């Protein structure tokens, strides 16, 4: 029997993979994607049940260490100030994400030239602009054109409702003369491409029962399959193999029955995210690559960036129904995004305003804090808070530092016996100062909006949603893992397209930029097909 060789083998079926597979499908090449998780069924999501507020806690936890599905892998976070959030299944992290979709800004790609920190990217905002727009159309993105904090672009759908709560917060920003804008969201505000519009269910972070949230299992994969891409679930890759010419030959994986298999391929694309990709590369050792595949620079797994994150919650009078609407997206302020030399930190942050707490978490927290008494007075106090909570998220730019790493844990393994990743991460002084500033400004904005109570939660450990930097791109093979179009410097038929290749972190949620970059890389692969490996 002739050997089964895929033209392109993609590892992982998350955000970046879906976009790249879509783009590459028009080459008519044979594309195979191996994903360790399952297809999700929206009918199983907690928001189909009255008890959604507790049903989301374990099975849909953002932490693989809590969720412990057999499709998850454990992560050692003992030496990290931030714990990792992900999802392992078709759609990857987008199954649970909020769909808050702001783009990186032009300055994010030039931090070294502009501010003397981090490094400049080998691409810039304007290189990616058409791919942002294409991805917005493919995903179904809602937003309002004209935001003065970002180059002009027109989201395909009208913005997501900001609600009475958004109006109140906006008035506060206006009082201070600060920027704000309804957020771009990967959630469809109107019926779009056969999908029903957002119903404001609320709990986007435990999967969208309506399918209005543009997770890529909904927005991309069904189309990709119609276009001929083969997606194999419950296939967990252990290792990428190479030959003596430093060319990738394929992947060894465990199939749904736990049986070891080999898939040969002409091109391998890594899309396992900023933790999964370095883990797999570091686990792919060989004579030619004793320190891990594509790791002659020594940078695989280094420069891990999250977004240092803080929370400030406010309570505003006026029955605002602030807990209704898509949980993680409403409006943002980028008043403090760009570097200002008068501040005690470099670079900046976004204030992401999200919906308030649902009744149960409000009650639990209120009782724990003593704001809501047990016994007499319980109902009165509860009503004072219900619907009036609003959450400010401070999303800080992280700077790349080689001491923040993903390595292989010497002891911990997943259920297939593959070494688990270990995270070593701490917040820099710059991040701490930035976060402190962010907490002060969030408090100021809430007070300006008339908050009768402000609770500052400070830095929050459980915020490792954004996984970046661990296989950075660049022109110099000594200082980067992949080149300016995602190809490994060391292995000429190996590409990386997920958040690992980010050079810096920006101060916004990364997925729209991850996907634009994946489309950009796929397009460059197509343009260079004749001499892809030169």
């Amino acid at each position: 029997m002739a050997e089964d060789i895929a033209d392109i083998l993609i590892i992982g079926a998350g955000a970046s993979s879906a976009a790249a597979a879509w783009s590459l499908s028009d080459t008519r090449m044979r594309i195979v994607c191996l994903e360790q998780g399952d297809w999700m069924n929206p009918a199983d999501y907690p928001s189909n049940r009255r008890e959604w507020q507790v049903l989301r806690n374990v099975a849909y936890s953002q932490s693989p260490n809590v969720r412990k599905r057999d499709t998850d892998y454990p992560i050692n976070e003992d030496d990290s100030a931030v714990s990792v959030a992900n999802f392992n299944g078709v759609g990857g992290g987008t199954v649970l994400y909020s769909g808050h979709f702001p783009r990186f800004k032009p300055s994010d790609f030039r931090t070294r030239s502009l501010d003397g920190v981090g490094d400049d990217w080998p691409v810039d905002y304007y290189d990616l602009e058409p791919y942002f727009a294409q991805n917005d159309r493919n995903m179904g993105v809602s937003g309002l054109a004209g935001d003065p904090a970002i180059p002009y672009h027109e989201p395909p759908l009208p913005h997501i409702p900001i609600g009475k709560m958004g109006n109140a917060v906006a008035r506060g920003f206006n009082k201070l003369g600060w920027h704000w804008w309804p957020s771009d969201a990967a959630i469809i505000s109107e019926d779009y491409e056969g999908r029903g519009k957002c119903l404001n269910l609320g709990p986007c972070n435990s999967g969208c029962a309506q399918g209005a949230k543009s997770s890529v299992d909904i927005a991309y994969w069904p189309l990709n399959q119609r276009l001929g891409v083969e997606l194999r679930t419950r296939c967990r890759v252990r290792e990428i193999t190479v030959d003596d010419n430093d060319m990738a030959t394929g992947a060894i994986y465990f199939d749904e029955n736990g049986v070891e298999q080999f898939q040969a391929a002409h091109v391998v694309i890594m899309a396992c995210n900023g933790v999964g990709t370095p883990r797999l590369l570091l686990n792919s050792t060989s004579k030619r690559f004793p320190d891990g595949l594509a790791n002659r620079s020594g940078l695989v797994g280094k420069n891990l960036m999250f977004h240092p994150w803080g929370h400030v919650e406010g309570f505003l009078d006026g029955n605002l129904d602030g807990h209704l609407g898509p949980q993680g997206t409403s409006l943002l302020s980028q008043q403090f995004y760009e570097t200002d030399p008068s501040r005690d930190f470099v670079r900046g942050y976004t204030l992401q305003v999200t919906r308030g707490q649902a009744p149960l978490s409000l009650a639990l927290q209120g009782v724990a804090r003593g704001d809501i008494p047990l016994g007499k007075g319980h109902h009165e106090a509860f009503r004072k808070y219900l619907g009036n909570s609003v959450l400010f998220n401070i999303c800080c730019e992280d700077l790349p530092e080689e001491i923040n790493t993903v390595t292989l844990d010497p002891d911990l393994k997943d259920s297939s016996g593959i070494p688990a990743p270990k995270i070593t991460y701490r917040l820099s002084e710059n991040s701490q100062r930035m976060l402190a500033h962010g907490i002060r400004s969030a408090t100021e904005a809430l007070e300006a909006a008339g908050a009768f109570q402000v609770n500052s939660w400070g830095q929050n450990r459980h915020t490792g949603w954004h996984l970046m930097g661990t296989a950075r791109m660049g022109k110099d093979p000594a200082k980067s893992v992949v080149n300016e179009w995602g190809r490994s410097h060391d292995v000429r038929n190996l590409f990386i397209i997920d958040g690992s290749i980010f050079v810096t972190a920006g101060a916004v949620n990364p997925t729209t930029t991850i996907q634009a970059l994946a489309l950009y890389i796929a397009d460059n692969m197509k343009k260079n097909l004749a001499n892809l490996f030169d």
Partner: protein
Amino acid sequence: MAERIVSDSGLSETQSRTLRVMLDAIIPADAGRGMPSAGELDLMGYVAEFAPEALDAIRADLDAAEDLAQKRLGIAFGGLSADDAIDLVNTSRATEPRFAQTLITQALGCYYQDDRVVTALGYPAGPPFPQGNTVEKGDLSLLEPVRKMGKIYRG
């Protein structure tokens, strides 16, 4: 008094009595607002379905409450008035914040996801899907000053 539908699965008689008094004390009924007491809801049925792993801790919480009532007041917790019961709970929690913690957590979970409670709070009963919620689009005229800022990004 409203009918009680506590399903006492796995609780002794004393524990069941303690539970009823405790629940009515921590979340009393409020007829004016249409709010039932926590004791009117089927907490143990809820726990059996959604948090079976909490059952042992709930039993321990009930036993601890009973011990305390006997020690401090010389009577069974199940014989306390609502005022005495909540006093005991609150004073105990002031020095031992974990007192009755699992029970209270589960009681709040049962209570604030109950259709009667949710409707009394002014929201539709049942799961979020498929009915969804109505949210105001927002007042875009508030963006006027922001539009006037002009470009604020670099590059």
